[in-house]
């Protein structure tokens, strides 16, 4: 292997990412900025799932807030109960008039194991139910996107309406401990950061494996021509379901890790607007490219923090512009620019290029001539 080849090798990418996340960032950043980075990494975990479901599977998941929220609340419920101590009610319940009894659906979250499992499995189970129903009925494209949005909005409304048991608009806040460790302690905050960074690498590695597997090729095939795949004897509903459920699990995990990193989970993170914001990072970086989606999510979050510190109004314009430019004029995201540049430099085919869909990446799926109508449902 030549040196340049080594540098572009995926393992080198993972290695340098690990180096950056575990060594460089903690050394260079203040505790506060590291905390912010932890938050960005959580969003990047959601973006990894979106990369799989949307970039590879063509499922525009505009309702990831739902799964992010399920994971976040599952984690926060346990932490609130742990803070309150055995037999005690969380502080907000006392304040907002619960009748002294812990609601039945809170009880299982007293167990740390149940809560931890629920952060990932609960969103996956919900996604499995939604996905089974929706994909079986061949609801797709924009219909699917609007339905996901409606569900996320409904979940946020439901949480808001049940203040005594969910904290209402406040959400669950003022979380003190994380499985016995005091979150006030900067050392523990750092640990939380490391956990999140490791989770991101693990999820990215897992999704990368999926993308490069036969399943990953099949998923791209379903994205580009679902009907054709069906005639090959596959059930596309099941192929899509897997991607959707995995993306939901990633979002749930991200939500769960967001709680100790930021110390709050609230309906404001679940509704329509945050759900769309989850997508923008992946869109800017390159929805079909794993690295693109991750870096895109981090960069957009970083831009939001920085720009909104200086010019709050400008951020909104900038965000709008990002959507327009990234999607209308650069559908492959920044990743497609990088790839083009690399291709121009070396005409020789690269080892890493045998990724399905790498060529045109997120360039729009070819649409049969008869499909000038919106993607929707078929008979």
């Amino acid at each position, binding site marked *: 292997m030549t040196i340049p080849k080594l540098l572009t090798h995926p393992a080198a990418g993972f290695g340098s990412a*690990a180096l950056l996340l575990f060594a460089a960032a903690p050394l260079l950043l203040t505790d506060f900025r590291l*905390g912010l980075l932890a938050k960005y990494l959580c969003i990047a975990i959601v973006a990894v799932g979106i990369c799989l479901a949307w970039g590879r599977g063509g499922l525009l998941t505009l309702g990831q807030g739902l799964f992010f929220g399920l994971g976040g609340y599952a984690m926060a419920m346990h932490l609130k109960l742990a803070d309150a101590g055995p037999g005690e009610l969380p502080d907000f319940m006392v304040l907002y008039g619960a009748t002294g009894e812990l609601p039945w659906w809170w009880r299982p979250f007293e167990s740390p194991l149940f809560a931890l499992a629920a952060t990932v499995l609960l969103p996956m189970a919900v996604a499995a139910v939604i996905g089974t129903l929706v994909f079986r009925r061949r609801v797709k494209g924009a219909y699917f996107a609007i339905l996901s949005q409606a569900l996320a909005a409904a979940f946020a409304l439901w949480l*808001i309406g049940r203040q005594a048991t969910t904290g209402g608009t406040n959400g669950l806040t003022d979380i003190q401990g994380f499985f*016995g460790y005091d979150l006030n*302690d900067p050392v523990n905050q*750092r640990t939380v950061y490391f956990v999140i960074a490791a989770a991101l690498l693990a999820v990215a590695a897992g999704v990368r494996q999926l993308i490069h597997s036969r399943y990953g090729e099949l998923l791209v095939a379903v994205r580009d021509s679902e009907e054709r795949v069906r005639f090959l004897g596959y059930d596309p509903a099941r192929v899509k379901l897997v991607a959707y459920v995995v993306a939901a699990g990633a979002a749930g995990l991200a939500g769960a890790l967001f709680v100790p990193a930021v110390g*709050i989970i609230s309906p404001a993170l679940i509704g329509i607007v945050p759900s769309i914001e989850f997508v923008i990072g992946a869109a800017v970086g390159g929805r079909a490219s794993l690295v693109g989606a991750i870096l895109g999510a981090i960069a957009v979050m970083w831009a939001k923090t920085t720009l909104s510190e200086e010019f*709050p109004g400008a951020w909104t314009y900038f965000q709008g512009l990002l959507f327009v430019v990234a999607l209308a004029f650069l559908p492959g995201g920044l990743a497609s620019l990088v790839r083009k540049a690399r291709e121009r430099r070396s005409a020789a085919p690269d080892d890493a290029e045998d990724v399905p869909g790498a060529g045109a990446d997120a360039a729009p799926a070819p649409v049969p001539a008869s499909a000038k109508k919106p993607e929707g449902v078929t008979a």
Partner: protein
Amino acid sequence: MSRYFPRRVAAPAVALSAAMVLSACGAKTDTGSSTAKGVEADTSGDTVKVGLLNSLSGTMAISEVTVRDSIRLAIDEINADGGVLGKKIRPVGEDGASDWPTFAEKAGKLIKEDRVVATFGCWTSASRKAVKPVFEKSRSLLFYPVQYEGLEQSPYIFYAGATTNQQIVPALDYLKSQGKKSIYLVGSDYVFPRTANKVIKAYAKANGMKVLGEDYAPLGSTEFSTIANKVKAAKADAVFNTLNGDSNVAFFKEYKSAGLTAPKMPVVSVSIAEEEVKSIGPQYLKDQLTSWNYYQTTKGAKNTAFVKAYKAKYGKDKPTSDPMEAAYTSVHLWKAMVEKAKSFDPEKVKAAADGVTYAAPEGEVTVDGPTQHIHKTARIGRIGADGLIEQIWDSGKPIEPDPYLKGYDWASGLS
């Protein structure tokens, strides 16, 4: 060979992180939080920074921008007057973007990165609840300018707005004195209205008033025909309104369309100040009631000067309102506390707080040390056709803050 790589890399990554977790264990919760230290503010130079934390974008920007403006006015006045303890104040503004986690993040930035000596801001209870742990963990001070639902007393927050017994309870007293026997509760679906309504129901029960109905609309909801129908059918003597923001516009338009008027069934609002009157339109609000501690029309030389200074700085058509006045006052109160303590150190400022007074536009206010709330005068106002609010009743003297309503027997079951 690249195809084998994910497992190879994933394994070291997991091992590495496991090692990190094991080696980097900090304090356990059960050992007490002794290792958690407050963040020291930077008071070394000849200026000190204070944080301004308000929503400049998103749904709450409507209200919070005006608060930001009045805080800046107060800071300008203090700087023109020589500053605090000989140091000029440098405001550092942050946008909470109407999003509670963002508030928490920005609070952290102000305290840890900018090392501000105090922070002024927040509006919704949700944003206050989100930043409360941040200020407590860092042992830094927040001055909160808006009336709220009470039942809170953070050691690192000064509450410059009214608590329930300075706004809601007086409004109920006023309705009772007017012979109103039944009320209908309408509010937005969030903490303040729900908690306020709990207080109102307890009061009503003890005072022989009937609560004929209680309805909540999601924040931002603009469809109120059903609620107007329900209110109309209930035939209450008065409506107690804790709706927030946009919803008020739709509610009052619907209320008027349903043929309900102030003489027939007055609405007492606790979230509508001069700024909101302007955006709803006096056409729909004429003669309706509000309960606050300050109006633009409040008498007194101090207020005349405040209103004049505000309009000079921000424009003739800009009204002043209660939260703006409270925010403005909170900056001056902080200055008085710091000067009494002769230090910017939060612990010393807290210790010096009790009994600090300031001649505010609303009249003289006094800090209550134990609760970190302010003694304030309650005022009932009536909205005029010109959009200004005219005071029709006041409590006569500042009311002692009682966030947990300990002084009221009927409130014993509330917290």
